[in-house]
């Protein structure tokens, strides 16, 4: 076994970051997905495009702007400082904020599709059976769209584990705070520690494969069609 203390710390940090980000992604992504699934205004295209931006932007671009925004001279940075929270760049919570923005499309899109597939009819049916909108969301939409929610959660988690450029921009490389597995791997390679790099890279490959395997097994739609 060739995991150093630092490697393990990086892996645990990665898991903690991914879990925190996924939770926040579900909380933030669900209302956005709901709104997108149920509205047909021209704002829908604008919001969809903004949500999807991280799909096409280099992570470093995102990281750069976040750094400015969250930094001591940025509007958000000034706000967090005045609230006594300090500034977010180069902290764990800075990484969380970056990850949430970066992985948002991976969570919003599957949930939006699932809610659209459920349609409005089950909600109408629930209303005729005395269920209010909130009640109907929990008892009808959530169970019927559950594969979408699970897909979103898994993709958001996996994508957060896999980020690198954004982390480096706003998190830097602080052991135990912002040094996640992908950054640790980069350090190993830089230092020509190929054996350790192999172990870490191998773990990430297996992890990614297992997550995606769960995803495809779980999702009957993706499984059924070719």
């Amino acid at each position, binding site marked *: 076994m060739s995991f150093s203390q630092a490697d393990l710390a990086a892996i645990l940090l990665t898991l903690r970051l991914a879990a925190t980000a996924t939770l926040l992604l579900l909380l933030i992504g669900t209302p956005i997905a709901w709104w997108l699934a149920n509205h047909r205004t021209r704002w829908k295209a604008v919001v969809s495009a903004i949500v999807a931006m991280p799909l096409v932007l280099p992570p470093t671009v995102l990281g750069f702007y976040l750094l400015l925004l969250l930094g001591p001279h940025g509007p958000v940075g000034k706000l967090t400082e005045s609230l006594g929270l300090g500034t977010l760049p180069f902290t764990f919570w800075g990484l969380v904020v970056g990850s949430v923005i970066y992985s948002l499309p991976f969570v919003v899109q599957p949930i939006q599709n699932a809610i659209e597939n459920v349609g409005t009819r089950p909600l109408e049916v629930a209303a*005729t059976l005395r269920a209010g909108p909130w009640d109907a969301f929990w008892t*009808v939409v959530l169970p019927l769209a559950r594969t979408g929610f699970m897909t979103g959660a898994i993709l958001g988690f996996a994508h957060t584990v896999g980020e690198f450029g954004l982390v480096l921009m706003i998190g830097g490389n602080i052991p135990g705070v912002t040094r996640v597995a992908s950054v640790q791997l980069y350090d190993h390679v830089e230092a020509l520690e190929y054996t350790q790099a192999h172990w870490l890279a191998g773990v990430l490959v297996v992890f990614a494969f297992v997550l995606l395997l769960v995803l495809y097994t779980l999702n009957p739609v993706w499984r059924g069609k070719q």
Partner: protein
Amino acid sequence: MTSPDGIHARFALALAEFTLDVDLHLPGQGITALFGPSGSGKTTLLRCIAGLQRVQHGELHVNGASWQHAKQFLATHQRPLGYVFQESSLFAHLSVRGNLQYGLKRVNTAEQRISWQHVIDLLGIEALMERKPAQLSGGERQRVAIARALLTSPRLLLMDEPLAALDQARKQEILPYLERLHAELEIPMLFVSHAPDEVARLADHIVVLQKGRTIAAGPLAETLARIDLPIQLGDDVGVVIEGKIAERDQDWHLVRVNCDGHDFWVRDAGHPVDHAVRIRILARDVSLALSHRQDSSILNILPVQVVETSQETHPAQVLVKLQVGSLPLLSRITQRSVQALALVPGKTVYAQIKAVALIA
């Protein structure tokens, strides 16, 4: 204008092709059919009544309770109604039992007037309890959907073409259940249909819609017998008469149905004597003669009085409204025959009824 009993619905709503504009006073009991061709606004009207479609300035009062009035608008889930959708609307993630309980457990115990077992028996779904909707036939799904709506003890049951998605055999399977609801529960029902046979069989009252407007409303028999209506019934123009089985002729497999003192011989459908039935006589099956002919195959020949005649869409055809005692009859004959027989209001002729359908 609004009586404490009955349903008063007034809605105006611009739709893509026409404006729904109705002001209806419906009886607070029995089955009322909202009848009209596809795209006449029937379903929209039902959705307005359910609160699924929000209409500004609408009015809706149901047996003394105000569901929509001025600025007040009860959301659908706050209205004590049941709704049966046209296509299967069962929750796919719940079993039949789960579906039935969904509505039931959201109703206060104090408001539950219909017992679980009664509904299950009424719709014959005891054996289906643990199945998922995907494992049910179309007819079974609709029966479960009706049961689910009933278990909320609705003050008004709305049904949007509950039979339309079913084939003829499945329809025949469901109709008896709907008749039992009618006979055993005191829930007013509004049901949307474009099928004249369903309306004739189930409805007590009828509202005829065309392009979003009410063109007729009233008790079924009376309304169907009106000849001034542009009801697009085509070959289905006819009357529905209520009566009782008076006699069964075992040798010929016929029954004598007595309707207000007049007898009709009909094919035996297995109903016992004294059973209340409806018979339906289509205008195209009634021909007229000046004498009582004994030498024909027609079983039912009645002396009737001509009430009025009305030109039909095709210039050759005329619809004649007849009366035998208090019963209305319609006959569709040619303009030429009207001339040949010199039919004028008040004249007595013989109606030869070729076919009488026993519909319930």
